[in-house]
């Protein structure tokens, strides 16, 4: 619906498009409807509740870990999930799960934020650290390998750290703060990379159901703008800007910029991209490589050793390039332009 139309439907008196009683306080990013604060919270939370119910994300009695980085998405997720759990009697045991990468001056602060969330929402917090799990902090890794390739370590280690933390908490599922913009971006990136296997999986609201800890994304249809800008602002939730200090000017990839441009002229484009992603006709024979377990640590892996173990082996033997320079040949092109193809997760420590 375009802006002019919303205005015309709004009727005289400039009242909230939904309740038609209060003065509108914002233009809802998803629909451009002018609505009041109260109606905004109501629809925002109700939509997420619908997504949870319709997709059967949780079962009563389940233990759920919320991946908590201290950033906006996971902070809002922790708030909304604890709120909905109470309001609609989901019967869930919620936990906050954080990863301490060991980045001085950065992670200390964001962990403080998570700890305040722990008290505010009364959710138990578990912190797993790279140091404990792998024997290395990110600071030590960067000292050894420099600023090149450090993201590979951080990314591989974090994914495992979350799974291991979830196992320690004995949870049934891990909920992450990926929002609609993230999903739309991932869909585009997979198209740009020609990765049909990931393209077919990336729209699933729950993933890894065959693995040890399934992950789900309650914010799959929630606009980033609604999370940041309105919600976090109005509710004054305590969150931390998760910009990595090893990434001084948080880089936003082409795809992210493109999505923001699209949203500006057609807000529903984000949902349309997700719809396309869900509807792509991908033959079911397009499968991911067979998953086994790492011979060394038992983590799921398609190779003999999982990536974290390969990277660790390199670090411990003083050969940090091990496990990194495996892409050559035709992929030379891909590597050259990796910078522009990154998604936002590389610029921030949010998850």
């Amino acid at each position, binding site marked *: 619906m375009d802006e002019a139309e919303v205005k015309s439907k709004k009727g005289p008196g400039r009242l909230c498009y939904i309740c038609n009683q209060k003065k509108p306080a914002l233009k809802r990013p998803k629909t451009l409807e002018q609505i009041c604060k109260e109606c905004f919270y109501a629809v925002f939370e109700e939509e997420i509740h619908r997504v949870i119910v319709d997709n059967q994300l949780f079962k009563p009695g389940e233990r759920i870990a919320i991946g908590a980085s201290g950033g906006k998405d996971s902070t809002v997720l922790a708030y909304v999930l604890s709120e909905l759990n109470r309001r609609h009697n989901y019967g869930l045991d919620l936990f906050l799960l954080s990863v301490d990468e060991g980045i001085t001056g950065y992670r200390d602060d964001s962990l403080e934020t998570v700890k305040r969330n722990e008290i505010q929402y009364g959710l138990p917090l578990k912190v797993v650290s790279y140091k404990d799990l792998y024997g290395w902090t990110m600071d030590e890794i960067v000292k050894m390998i420099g600023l090149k390739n450090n993201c590979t370590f951080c990314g591989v280690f974090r994914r495992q750290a979350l799974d291991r933390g979830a196992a320690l908490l004995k949870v049934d599922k891990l909920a992450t703060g990926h929002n609609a913009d993230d999903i739309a971006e991932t869909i585009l990136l997979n198209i740009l990379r020609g990765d049909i296997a990931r393209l077919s999986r990336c729209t699933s609201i729950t993933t890894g159901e065959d693995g040890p800890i399934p992950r789900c994304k309650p914010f799959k249809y929630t606009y980033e703008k609604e999370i940041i800008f309105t919600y976090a602002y109005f509710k004054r939730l305590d969150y931390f800007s998760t910009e*990595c200090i090893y990434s001084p000017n948080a880089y936003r990839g082409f795809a992210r910029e493109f999505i923001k441009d699209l949203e500006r002229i057609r807000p529903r484009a984000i949902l349309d991209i997700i719809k396309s992603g869900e509807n792509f006709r991908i033959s079911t024979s397009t499968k991911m490589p067979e998953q086994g377990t790492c011979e060394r640590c038992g983590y799921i892996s398609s190779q003999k050793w999982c990536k974290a173990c390969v990277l660790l082996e390199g670090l411990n033997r003083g050969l940090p390039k091990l496990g990194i320079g495996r892409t050559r040949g035709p992929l030379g092109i891909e590597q050259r332009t990796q910078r522009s193809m990154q998604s936002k997760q590389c610029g921030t420590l949010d998850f």
Partner: protein
Amino acid sequence: MACAAAACHENGCCKDEDDEGLVLSTKKRTAEPTIKTNSVLVATASSNTITSSTEDSEHRHGLCVKCKVDAALAGDECNLCFGCFRASLFGKFKVTVTTKDLISPTDNVLIAFSGGPSSRVALQFVHEIQQKAQRNLDASRDKSYPVFGVGAAFIDESAISSISSHEFEQAIQDIRLIVSSLAPPAKELHIAPIGNIFSLDPNDGTERLKELLHTINDVTGKEDFLQHLRMISLQKIASDHGYTKLVLGSCASRIACHVISATVKGQGYSLPADIQYVDARWEVPVVLPLRDCLAQELKMLCHHEGLKTLELLDGPRSGINGLVSSFVTLLQEENPSRQPTIVRTAEKLTPFNFNRLPEIDDSSNHLPFRRRHKKLNFKSDESNTSEFFCQICNSPIKNSDLESLRSILGHSETGANIFGSSCSSCQFQILPKEPSSMEHFYSLLPKSMVARAREGICCNQDRLREQIKDCLLSDDEEGI
């Protein structure tokens, strides 16, 4: 995640897993027999990265990396000489035409000619294989080999364009000259005002077209609608003059843009229908022989060969299409293989049953021309052929999307409810929102579109009824 922009330069960042997928897809790709999806420019660019040291030095000397005799073309992307470049581009076209059996000797093909580089090259290349077929005929003792016929069609949009009539007249003259100066066999040129699909009376047609476009508020919707009208015009010309195939000059760059636009417009389901070499959902099947060539390559060919093109008529795209087009251009500048990769992604989506030529059981199968014919591998599952098509854009509609029909049937009993089976994208960006203006909109549509709608409703009625029977209140046959 720790990731300075510069630090990520050489690795997959947190997306490292993705490289694995990329390796897989690349491997899978090279295992396939056809190589033509890789464009000429890209092939050279990537081989350049593998053996960069030797080729760099050759490039510095300015020699063609293929024949190593002639000077390479100027420009940073290409390191072939003109001869090798042209041969490789034409080879790509030829392989597509023959392996996909896009043109057979008994065909009469109509080339959609806009005057732009892509359709100019399409005209040129089709002309060349026609000449070749003619020469073969002349040389053969047995004169029974037919040579396919070629015509060109230009859709005159002057009524709704901002180009001055003087400039337009000039453009038409150029187009006539381009087509008439091709060597024999002679090619007929059809120039038809786009209003022709509305009415036989030119003024009336133009008025209706203008009024129709006026009802569409969304700039992207307007542009897309015009694109659908263009296709209807071409189909009309083709069918009125007995053509058997419609050749479009759609190149990889254009297709890449379409892949992204369709995704952004929520048309992921129907996307594979639009990007195949063959699209037989139309009365006259549409073929895309240049699907694997980059716009840049086609432009380069026109430039070096002195093929006249008319940029004038190819205005910038607007709205969503404009954003997509600059996004894809940006990506291509960053990485010369990006557009082919996008096309390849879409190619991996499952095509529809109409993305193959209808089987013709004729005796021409033994002709040498058809020898290399590779049957497209489709299961002839006839139960699958009854797709629902959007009445506006002719896209197949996903079954579950027909659910939205329920609401439309709920409060409209008029002729306008025929648009219940429009895709959600057309409903959003093209159709009027108010039921009253919908009827007006419907009354203005070209007859062929309305006919298609009726036909669609007729054919699909049973299945449609089946899907919505629980929400139909009476057994009223007029209901849908």
